[in-house]
């Protein structure tokens, strides 16, 4: 009888230790995950200009310069959009990285390839140049 009691007591002690071993392992795993997460979060300290854009649409000085030169090259024809020249210029510079929407006022067309029907790219850059009282040249770049 006494031997049986002793056996029962030993089992109880082993059971308790096993609980703590498992708990320790879980705590260590959670700690490692948290430390890894904190190192990922510290990577948000690497800043580029996209981080400072509240409305998801931003200006681009170099796009604007290219548009100014494009207007000059269009030789004063400010009422019609010169699509071929736009392809020559903007598709070469931005075509690899962006879908390009361009045109006068709301008549925007894709310069180069159109996005797929299932693709909804976010707009990244928007630039405008006022051509005259009625017309405005618009260019939108959408990330591929």
């Amino acid at each position, binding site marked *: 009888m006494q031997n049986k009691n002793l056996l029962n*007591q030993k089992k109880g*002690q082993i059971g*308790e230790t096993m609980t*703590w071993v498992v*708990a*320790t392992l879980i*705590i*260590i795993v959670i*700690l490692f995950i*948290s*430390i890894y997460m*904190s*190192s990922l*979060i*510290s*990577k948000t*300290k*690497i*800043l*580029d*200009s996209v981080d400072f854009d509240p409305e998801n649409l931003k200006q681009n*000085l*170099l*796009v604007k*310069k*290219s548009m*100014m*030169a*494009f*207007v*000059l*090259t269009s030789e004063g024809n400010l009422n019609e959009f010169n699509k071929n020249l736009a392809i*020559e*210029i903007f598709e*070469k*510079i931005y075509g690899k990285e962006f879908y390009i929407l361009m045109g006068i006022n709301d008549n925007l067309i894709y310069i180069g390839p159109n996005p797929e029907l299932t693709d909804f790219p976010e707009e990244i850059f928007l630039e405008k140049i006022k051509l005259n009282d009625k017309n405005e040249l618009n260019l939108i770049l959408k990330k591929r």
Partner: protein
Amino acid sequence: MILKNKRGAEKIISVYWFAILILVAGGIFVMVANFHNSLYDVRELEAEIMINQVSDCLSYGGKLNEDLFDENGFNEEFKILEKCYLNFGNGKEEYYLEIEFYNFENLEESLNFKISEGNINLKADCEIQKSKEYGTISKCVEKTFYSLDNDKNEFFIKILSIIRKTEKNAK
């Protein structure tokens, strides 16, 4: 006998509990130190700002700066640091700036005119960055734009800006 066993087990657990507390505290310490010791890396922003300033200097209203040209074509004496009011510091080791002019017909074909200033050795870091981003080497930004000269000749201009400053931006 049973009571003695219980007290013994509880004392072992208390020591163990403090060991776990120290482990958790150590983990929190590492997390906080990890986040706060890492620096803000603003080099990409800085490189973009440099490109904007240089492009403003090279081209205005769609036309290239007249000082880029002389009677024979491109002006080889064009000093970008003086003309565009840039100061790379005494050592000039932390920056590299390169401007190349390209044929309008073919963006891959560079014309025989290149302006560069700074530490050219930093260019090697750009190749490494293409395969994988490392914080501890220089940051490179390259942008292209289109412009005309006074005779309405068309050019593509590529500006490459590289900033090292690793001690201040990456640990």
